């Protein structure tokens, strides 16, 4: 079967040539051989090894440093929020009358590791917002948003807004006094936008007053609508990062000045 040309494997992952005196065409350990066989079987059908090498073994510029890990850190914060959020949804009940607050209390007091997982979700939310701003600051101060990476920046800004929406909608879910009044204030701040603000508030609240379906509406936005959009946009963001490559820090100069032949002057 013809294969697409793939970027070469890095040296450490390439199969080593046999040492002198060893059998050159011998087989390896049966377990390794079996694993290679399975991976080959899958890859012959999916043809994904080229894409994975393209994604993972790419050239990075000289001078990159720890500041370049802030994007990955944000991604891992998102993954942590996703995993802890999914398991919290196994116990949470978005019922304003009797259930939301009680289910949070149940998670905290009775569920094995419940308080730990909910705290990870709660503090992870703040950490993700801090990391996303640090990542944004790195991109801004290193000038990494410039051509041809403007679209990566624009998608990143949309992801920032979606993350803030996640923070706003998630804040209501414990449904205690703090989250209730904070959401009232937040919705009313949103309503001060001229012309559209009052109608946007009605949409967020599902009516002119904080009502029976406001909590479930926030819950649906928090765990279905926005995360879906974020996963799609993170995919686009990472594709662009891989496609366009990473920009060098601004203090890295071109290694060799272009030599101009005197004869050409």
């Amino acid at each position, binding site marked *: 079967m013809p294969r697409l040309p793939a970027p070469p494997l890095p040296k450490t992952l390439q199969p080593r040539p046999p040492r002198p005196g060893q059998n050159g065409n011998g087989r390896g350990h049966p377990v390794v051989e079996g694993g290679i066989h399975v991976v080959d079987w899958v890859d012959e059908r999916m043809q994904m090894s080229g894409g994975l090498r393209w994604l993972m073994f790419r050239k990075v510029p000289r001078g990159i440093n720890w500041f370049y890990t802030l994007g990955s850190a944000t991604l891992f914060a998102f993954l942590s929020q996703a995993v802890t959020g999914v398991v919290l949804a196994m116990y949470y009940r978005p019922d*304003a*009358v*009797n259930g939301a607050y009680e289910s949070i209390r149940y998670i905290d007091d009775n569920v094995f590791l419940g308080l730990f997982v909910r705290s990870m979700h709660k503090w992870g939310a703040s950490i993700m917002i801090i990391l996303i701003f640090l990542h944004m600051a790195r991109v801004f101060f290193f000038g990494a948003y410039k051509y041809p990476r403007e679209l990566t920046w624009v998608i990143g800004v949309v992801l920032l807004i979606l993350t803030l929406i996640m923070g706003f909608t998630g804040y209501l879910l414990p449904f205690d006094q703090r989250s*209730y*009044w904070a959401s*009232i*204030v937040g*919705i*009313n*701040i949103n*309503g*001060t936008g*001229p*012309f559209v*603000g*009052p*109608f946007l*508030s*009605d*949409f967020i*609240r*599902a*009516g*002119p*007053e*904080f*009502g*029976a*379906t406001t909590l479930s509406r926030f819950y649906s936005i928090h765990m279905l609508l926005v995360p879906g959009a974020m996963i799609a946009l993170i995919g686009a963001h990472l594709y662009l990062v891989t496609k366009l490559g990473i920009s060098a820090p601004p203090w890295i100069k071109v290694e060799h000045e272009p030599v101009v032949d005197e004869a050409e002057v």
Partner: protein
Amino acid sequence: MPGAFEGETVTRRRFMNVAANGAGAVATLAFTLPALGFALAPVFHEQAFQWQAIGPPSDFNALVYSNRVITIVPGVGTAGKTLAYVRARNAAIDREPEDKYNQWIALSSRCMHLGCPVRYVQAAERFICPCHGGVYDFRGLVAGGPPVRPLDRFYTRLNSISGLVEVGPRYSVNSELQRFSPRDPGQPLDGIGQYLYPSRVSTPPPPPGG
């Protein structure tokens, strides 16, 4: 036309393309439009409201506010309740035009800065908001702090059958205490405010003649 029979204006390939893509578009709209309407419906749906009895007229005097818990959204437990501060109309200080809906003054506890609950302090005769320091005087007019308009009010009336005072829908007022349809906190009603923050269709209508 190449690829078409005599007299045909559209090739079969093009017709099938348009038909297949059109069918896909119809199928997509068939679920996105109802879903969108489902999510947006509350913006256009008028909320129902019922008059609620809050006590006989002898419960209320013109000098002291009485607290009454009323339900503005049924079926949500405590989240649907709100506090109303009620007193009898005092002709000496209440100079807004008198009608059958303001014989008792019922002020909403919702602060007009961003919606926190205000507390009435009898010693100061002021309503004070704990969140950002909004202060209102005895009539609910802004006396200090960030609120953009006086406290909202509720229509009140005397039920001639039961003989009880009843509280009706909420309404908003500007600094002249003119009535407007209920607006959210933070939305001024003086000057061009009433046009920047238009009336919504979701709020309960005023009572007849109110």
